[in-house]
Structure formats: C-alpha cells, structure tokens
C-alpha cells in the first residue's frame, strides 16, 4: 500500500519527462507492481486481522468468564447492594464496548501507526518544509483529541449508567408485574420509564454533540493540510523546486494519511468508550470477595459430623446495629433444634451464618469444635442442606431442580426425595410429571409446591446438617406433619427448624426462643411451657384461642 504512491511518483515523473521516456510496457509494469504490492499487503493484513480479531474475541471470552467466576465468589451482602439489571448491563453492554476497543482499535492503531510512520519518512525525504507545513494541523488535532476524548469518556460513563438504570427499571417492572397489575400502576410505571428514557436521550445528546464535532474535525484538519500542500506544493512545482511526480506522490501520501487519521478518530472514540466501560467492569472485578477460604483453613477437613456451637456470637449487617447479640448455643450432632421468635428477631440471620452466607466473626461459630472459618467452604456447604425462607428455583425441569445439588442422580433417587418432601402426590397430577417445566423462579408452581421442591432439593443427597428456615409457611399442616415424619427417618442428621407454628416445633429436642437478637429461652416444649415466658405465652394464646373456638 505504501509503495503504491512511490510507484506513482515514478509513473508521473516518467510521464512528465517526455513521451519518449515512457512505454506501454513500462506503464503495465508499474500497474502490475502496484497490484503485486497490494496482494502481498493483503495477505499480511489478513493475518493481522485474523490474529488481532481473534485475540480480541478471546480476551472478551476470558473477561466474560472472569466476570462470571468473580460473581460466583461474591457473598450475599454484595448482591444485596447491587441491582441485577446493573450487573447485567455491565456484563453485556460494557463488555461490548471493551471488545470493540480491543478488536477494531488495535487493528487500526497498528495500521495507523505503520502507515503514518512510513508515509512520514517518505514525505520527509521528498521535501522537509512541505512535510512540516502539511503537518501543521496535526498537533492542533492532538490537543483537540485530548480535550474531547476526556469529555467523551466521562459522558460515555454517564450514558452507560443511564442505560443501567433503564435496564434495572425494566427488569424490576417485569419481575413485579403482578404487583404492577394488582395496583394498576401501569400508567405511573410508563411515566417513570419515560422519564428515564428522556433522561437517557438528553445524556446522549451531550455525547452526540461531541461526537458530531469530533469526527468532522478529523476530516477538516487533514483537509486543511492538503490544501496547504496543494497551494505551497503547487508553487514549488511552478518554481521548479520539486518535480511534478514528487508533488503527485506527496499528494497521494497525504491523502493516504487522511484515512488513518479519520480512523484515529474512531479509535479515540472507541478508546474513550472502551476505557469507560473497562472502568465499570473493573469496579466489579476489584471488589474482593469477603467470604472465601482464608489463611488457616484446614484443607484436610472433608467431612463433618454436624455438631454446631455458637460462642458469644454477635452479628451486625454492614454499618447497622447488631442483629444478633451474644448468642451461646450448642446443638448436638443428630439432634433437632427449633428456633422461634418474633418477626425480625434474627432467626434467619442466625442460620444464615452457619453456611457462611453472611460472614460471622472468627471464633463465634463452630462445627465439630472447629471454627467454621477454618473449614473449607466447599466442605462446609456440602455438609449442609438448606431450605431458605425464600427459596429460588431455576427455570428448568422439575427433576433437574430436585437433582440440582447432586452430581449424578438416578430417577429413583429423585423420586425418593420428592416423596420425602411430600411432593410426589402433586407430581402425579402434572401431565408431564417430573418433566414439568417450573418456569422462571418456579412461578408456574403453587407456593407450597415451590417450597416442597426446595425441600426435596435439600434432602436429595442426605446432608449432615439440615436447615429448614420457615420451610413450611406455604404448606398445609397435614403435609407438613408427613414431611417432618419422613425427615426424621432420613438418618442421623442435625436439624434446625425455624417456624411460627407450635405444632411444628413442639417435638424438637431443644427449642430456642430468640427475642430481639438474644436467646431468651432454651429448653424442651415442656420446660418452656412451665417457664411461663414468651414461648409459654404464645402457646397459651393458641390454646386459649382454640378453647374459645371449640365452645
């Protein structure tokens, strides 16, 4: 490509020097030379594009993988703060900007510098002053680029933020569609979305204005250079200072510079966008996961027995007052403990600390006498079967949801788990049985079916510790009774039950009453009833109620 204008110079010089200097053969030779050079360049370019384009894609692939892997390590408290829509838009929209930067920009940067460098050298050899004059606009360009690209960068960041916001809005509106409809919020949602839309348009307006100035500048300034050249170069030719061929070649070089310069405009823009997006992605990646295997973890622990102990456990969610205060409790391996207490007393918080969904202080939660923070996370969690208060099902077949935690599960195993969770009778009524698709978050199941699927999932491979956090809230008492009976037969597993129903907790070996983050009563049903405390009060109330009713 670069040699092209050189050849052109010879052509023009030859042509100019006189009709006798040039023959058709010579012209043909020049033409073939141009073509040949282009061919070689083309092959080269193919290799380059393929290489860089491929590398860019691979980096994008790695980055996406890293992003996912990173999120996998992040603790719940992190997701409590982040919006899904926002995370998604970083993983998609921003990653795109990065990939565009890597792919095109690198190719063009390589192209542009090579082009620019060579063309410059050759131009300098033809005529130094002309070159200098033709290049006058370029430093101006550089300064302008600096100025504008910083603005572009900042603006783009704002745009991406605006996009994230819209994304989050849509996501929330669609997820909460039942509430939106039930409260006829459609109109106000539409208005709110339009406000964000308008805001997004105006964010873009600033950016577009910059962009609209930016690109033409990249044509304007080199164009001025070309005119300066035509003018001064033309004068030089007239004065016989340079040959017409040099002039033409010079012109050709300069016009070849224009394209890389325009490209440079693209690059700068992409760069501004790409780096803004990288910043946004890095913001996520640079957040260190808090809950992971730390120093002091004993890798040798691969199995747990299931004896749980809390020692002076105090816990607070980030920057708020403690939710749990000085909890001391020992749960024997294989025993059943029930936790009761008012809404917001801290029951869920307490059990969430066992599998380290949230991070307990060192030296406060022990299993088999070992600080849970010294137990490998994988061992810890693999030993625990947990049904969270709000269980999450994946949009997959019912059987895959039940077998979610098991590496390989036979049909019979799945069926057994379903039976033990009291789900089998329901499944029998589904036309597709275990192959029923449960819909996103399990929304095509009834509330109780969802909870029981979660129970089946937790007991699929019998855990050492089973935690049922209000797992029967949407299950009728009859079914609950049956399930609890079956769970007892599961074998030697430590069970922690949270419930508001006395009938559920009565039979536990130990009942713990939480009040305002403290354990206020511990004992068996009989103990507590005779203690005349909170538990006895609840029990009394239920009895009283029941007596009135049976009159």
């Amino acid at each position: 490509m670069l040699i092209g204008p050189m050849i052109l110079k010879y052509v023009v010089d030859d042509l100019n020097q006189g009709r006798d200097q040039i023959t058709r053969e010579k012209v043909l030779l020049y033409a073939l030379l141009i073509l040949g050079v282009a061919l070689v360049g083309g092959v080269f370019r193919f290799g380059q594009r393929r290489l860089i384009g491929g590398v860019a894609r691979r980096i994008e692939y790695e980055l996406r993988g890293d992003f996912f892997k990173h999120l996998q390590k992040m603790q719940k408290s992190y997701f409590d703060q982040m919006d899904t829509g926002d995370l998604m838009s970083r993983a998609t929209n921003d990653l795109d900007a990065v990939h565009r930067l890597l792919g095109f920009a690198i190719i063009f940067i390589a192209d542009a510098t090579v082009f620019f460098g060579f063309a410059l050298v050759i131009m300098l050899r033809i005529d130094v002053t002309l070159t200098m004059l033709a290049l006058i606009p370029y430093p101006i360009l550089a300064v302008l680029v600096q100025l504008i690209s910083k603005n572009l960068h900042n603006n783009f960041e704002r745009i991406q933020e605006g996009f994230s916001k819209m994304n989050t809005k849509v996501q929330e509106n669609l997820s909460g569609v039942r509430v939106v409809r039930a409260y006829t919020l459609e109109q106000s949602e539409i208005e709110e979305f339009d406000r964000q839309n308008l805001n997004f348009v105006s964010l873009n307006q600033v950016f577009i204005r910059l962009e609209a100035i930016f690109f033409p500048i990249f044509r304007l300034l080199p164009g001025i250079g070309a005119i300066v050249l035509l003018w001064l170069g033309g004068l030089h030719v007239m004065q016989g200072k340079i040959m017409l061929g040099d002039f033409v070649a010079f012109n050709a070089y300069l016009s070849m510079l224009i394209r890389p310069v325009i490209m440079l405009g693209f690059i700068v823009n992409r760069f501004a966008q790409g780096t803004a997006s990288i910043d946004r992605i890095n913001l996520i990646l640079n957040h260190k996961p808090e809950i992971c295997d730390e120093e002091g973890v004993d890798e040798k622990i691969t199995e747990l027995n299931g004896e749980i102990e809390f020692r002076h456990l105090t816990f607070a969610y980030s920057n708020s007052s403690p939710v749990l205060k000085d909890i001391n409790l020992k749960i024997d391996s294989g025993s059943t403990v029930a936790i009761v207490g008012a809404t917001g007393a801290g029951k869920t918080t307490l059990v969430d600390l066992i599998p380290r969904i949230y991070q307990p202080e060192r030296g406060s939660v022990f299993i088999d006498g070992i600080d849970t923070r010294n137990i490998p996370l994988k061992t810890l969690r693999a030993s625990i079967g947990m049904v969270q208060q709000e269980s999450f099902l994946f949009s997959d077949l019912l059987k895959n949801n039940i077998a979610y935690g098991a590496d390989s599960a036979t049909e019979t195993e799945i069926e057994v788990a379903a039976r033990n969770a009291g789900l089998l009778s329901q499944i029998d009524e589904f036309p597709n049985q275990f192959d029923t698709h449960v819909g996103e978050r399990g929304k095509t199941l009834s509330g109780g079916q969802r909870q029981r699927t979660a129970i089946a999932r937790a007991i699929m491979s019998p855990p050492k510790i089973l935690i049922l956090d209000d797992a029967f809230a949407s299950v009728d008492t009859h079914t609950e009774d049956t399930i609890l009976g079956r769970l007892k037969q599961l074998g030697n597993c430590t069970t922690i039950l949270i419930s508001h129903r006395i009938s559920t907790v009565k039979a536990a070996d130990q009942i713990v009453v939480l009040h305002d983050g403290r354990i206020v009563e511990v004992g068996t049903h009989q103990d507590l009833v005779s203690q005349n405390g909170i538990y006895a009060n609840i029990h009394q109330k239920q009895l009283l109620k029941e007596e009135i009713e049976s009159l």
Partner: protein
Amino acid sequence: MFGGSLHEYSEEEEDLGKIYDNVLMRRLIAYLRPYVFEVTLIVLLTLISTAIRLVSPYLTKIAIDDYIVPKQLEGFRVIAFYLLFLLAVEFLFSYLETYRLQMMGQRIMRDFRMQIFTHLQRVDMNFFDQNPVGRLMTRVMGDVSALNELYTHGIITIVANLLSIGGIMFMMLWINWQLALVTFVVLPIILVMTTVYQIYSRRAFRDQRKFRAQINAFLQESIVGMTTMQLFTREHRSFEKFGEHNLKYLNSSIRSVFYFSVFFPMIEITGSLATAVIIWYGGGQIIQNTLSFGALVAFLQYAQRLFWPIRELSEKYTIFQRAMASSERVFDLLDTQPIIKDSAYPKQLQTVNSSIEFQNVSFAYREDDYVLNDVSFRIEPGEKVAIVGATGSGKTTLINLLCRFYDIEKGQILIDGLDIQQMKLDSLRKRIGIVQQDIFLFTGTIESNINLSNTSIQPDQVVAASKEVYLDPFVQNMPNGYGSEVKEGGSGLSVGQKQLVAFARALAFDPDILILDEATSSVDTETEYLIQDALSRLMSNRTFIAIAHRLSTIQNVDKILVMHRGRVHEMGSHNQLLQKRGLYYRLYQLQYKDQKI
C-alpha cells in the same frame, strides 16, 4: 415465537434472518413519520456534503491541469480558497448531519422502547409465565439498539452512499468515459465478493446472536440465584455450563472474524486493482495524449472515494439483517394482542357492596390441564371468608381469576352481579386490595413501597397503615424511618417484615375488597393475632377473603371454603364444618391434636 410450549423456554429459535422484508420495512419506515422534517433536512445536508466531496477532486484536477502544469499563478489562489471554503462547509454540514441523525435515532429508540414497555403493561399474565424476564429485556433494550443502527447508519446512509457512488461514477464518466468504463470493471468483482461474504457471515452472525442470548439468560438467572448456587456448591458446575455457552459464542465470533479478515483485505486489493488499471490504461491514454495529469490524479482520488461507500454499503448488509431480525421479534411482541382488556362497552358498577360470585368456573393454565373444576360459590357483601385447602388445590388461582390476571372460558365471575369481563380492568383492580403469596418489593424506600409513589396517599396514611399491621415499630427503629432505603427484592428486611410492608400497602390503598393470600405466613403468632384484631375492626363493612394454612388465623371469619383438587369441597362456618366431620374437621384436628390436653 411468543407463546409456544414451555419446553422451548430458553431456546430462541432463529432461522437465517432475512435481509429485506417489505412488510417489516414498511412498518419500520413508519417510525420515521414523526421526523419527516428531520429526515428531509438530513437528506438535504447529506446531498450537499456528498456533492462537495465530489467537487473537490475535480478542483484538484483543475489546479494541476490549468495552473500548476502550465505554471499559471493567476487564479491559483482562488482555487485554493474555493477548496478551503468547501472544506469548511462540509465540516459544518457533516456536524449538523451527524448530530441531527444521531439525535433522531435516539428519539426513535425512545419511541420504540416506550411502545414496547407500554405494550408489556397490557399483555396477558400467561405471557409472563412463558417468557422469562431476561428475554423480554432483550426486546426492550437490545433489539431496540439494533434498530437504532438501521435508522442512523442504515436507511439514510444507504441513500447517501448510493448517491456518492452514482455521483462519483458520473464524474468519472464525465472526465473520461473510456478510463471510467475500464475502471468499473472491478465493480462486478466487488459485487461477487460481497455476496459470498454475506452468505458466510450471515450464518456465523446468526449463531453469534443465538449464543449471546443464551449467555445473557443464563447470567441473569445465575445472578438472581447466586446464593442457592453457592449453598449447593455448584460453582464449578455452573461455571462449566456458562463456559459452554461462552465458548460457543467465542467460536462463532472467531468464525465471523475469519470472514471479516478475508473480506476486507480483498476489498482493499480490489481497490489497488482499480488503481493499477487506472495507471495502466490512463498511462496509456496520457501517452496518446487523450488524458491530462490532473485528470489522472482526480481519477485516482475518485477511485479511492468510490471504494469507501461500496465498502460501507456491504456493511449495511449486516445492519439490515440484524435490524430485520430484531424488528421481526419486536413486532412479534407488539402484535401479541392481550385477550384480557377492557370490554368494548364497559359497564360501571353502581353499587359498592362487593358481593362476589363464582358460577361454574373451570380454568386451565395450560390447555386441558384443568386446575379448577366447576367452582361455584357466593360471598355476600361485607362477608369475611377464608379459603383453605391443601397445597396446589387452586386457592391462589381463584384469586388470580378474581383479579382477572387470567380469563376464564367456562363459567362466570360476578361482582355485585356484574360479570368482571364487562368491567373496566382498572376499576375492577382498584376495588381489590391484595397481598400476594409472593411478596414483591420495589427498589426505593419503605414509604414508596407502601404508597407505590401514589401522591394521593398522604404520609400519615402510610404511617397509619403501618401501625395497623405492626410494621411501624420496625420502621421507627430504622435510621431513616419511612425514608429507609429498600434494595432490589427487599433485601435488608426479614421475610416477615416484607410481608408486613405488602400488607400495609394493601391497607393504604383502602380497597373495597381485601384479599390476603398467605399474607402473614411468615409473621409470628403474636403479631398475627394483633393484626387480626385490627382487621376485624378495619374490615367491618368490607368484603374480606383470606387464604391461610394456619387455621388459627382464620377462625374469625363468617364462612370457610375448603378447596380440594380444584373443587369446592365444603363450605360453611367454622362450627358447621366441624360438625360435618369432613375434610376441614380432619385438617383442624391435625393442627390442634397435640394441644388438646
């Protein structure tokens, strides 16, 4: 594409997208209608700047032929000034053009997004059962961006490109038609190359889009279900799965990179071919004195400029194809008409008694899989009714039907004797306050979650409602009270507290009919009793329906409806049902057996 069996959930079937479809195109063009002025202006600006770009090489030719070669200084300056002037005009115009065009694109995107979003507020509920949120978000956000390209880099740019090509060809023919014709020989080559490229890249491109949609859906679900995944130590497995999607996407991208790397150098080589041809043939012409130097230089410049629009045009292929695919999906969505909508002649309810009657209602979510069978019952105005029954017996479904989230085909549901299908949807729903089984809180504050940003609900009403459900003490304990932040999905609150928020919300809206679907299932007994006392006062003149598994919570009601396998099995007061010794009696016994000491 929408609808269809649930099994195709995450599979987004896509065939090779069309590049051009008349019907779609006509609909797409219709979106330009509000911008006729803009479009005209932009086209004008484009015309002018295209013309300018055509003129400058010609001026260069004149400068060389008429001034530099004959060493003619006079008038040379004028030419240079012309060139400078044209350059400035072009700068101004292309600024205006880009700005106007991009802004128009943004506005059209807003139109699209609003239209889709608005439409999604109307579509039937079972549409959401079948379409995951991730996919719908792709419609509102992703597909719309693809359409943007069509408007900003598609339709109008194509016009501009074609104009440029035509103009340049004309100029070349005008300067020297023989040389021009010889140069045009390369055009068919480009045409063939472009077509071949399109055939290959289209396929790679379609794959790319498909895999990408899969990645996004997977990612979205993983983020929402991250804790579950961690609890089951599935990190490795799900990373592998993600990696599979990711790898598929990578491979298809690499394929398109390959085509791209072959195609563009080839276009450039063809460009050089044109240069070579010009030098070979033009050189010959110069020897024969039928061509001037200036013309040769101008020709070379024109040839360069000819290739840009052609190259760009070939990129338009991709843009068009993407836009066609996206618009097809978007229009598909916009064309799904809701079945549930206001009847053509909505009737206004005169009374506000709120009696509710189900008459022989049968209902299936999915074809022929009946969840409710021939359900009939009547609730008198002001009556308090409880619905009990085993899991999956259809309790929530009854409520869904009453709110007209789904329409029934068999039977009728009447409020005060008027079929709900004949009522206006929002007047129906405004009368009903409902606390749903699945609690949903919005990002915002406690207050905005109770009044749902409805300004007609005063702050003291919010507080009053919270006090009735005993939410107030919790809120008072929070650092910012009712202004405390609520994060996505209500994280930061205990489940019981979330239920109380939803409960307060229902009360704050002061409905004629209050429905509680397991509204206090995660609330402690103490609070529950207190709430019940409050309710019996609040609901004295209103119709009230409660669904509950804890029988203790429903004993104050006038009537109990026992559901069993989609049928009303028993109905009557607590005492009647106990005497009947049927299903209710058995449920009741089970729950209280231990307490009868």
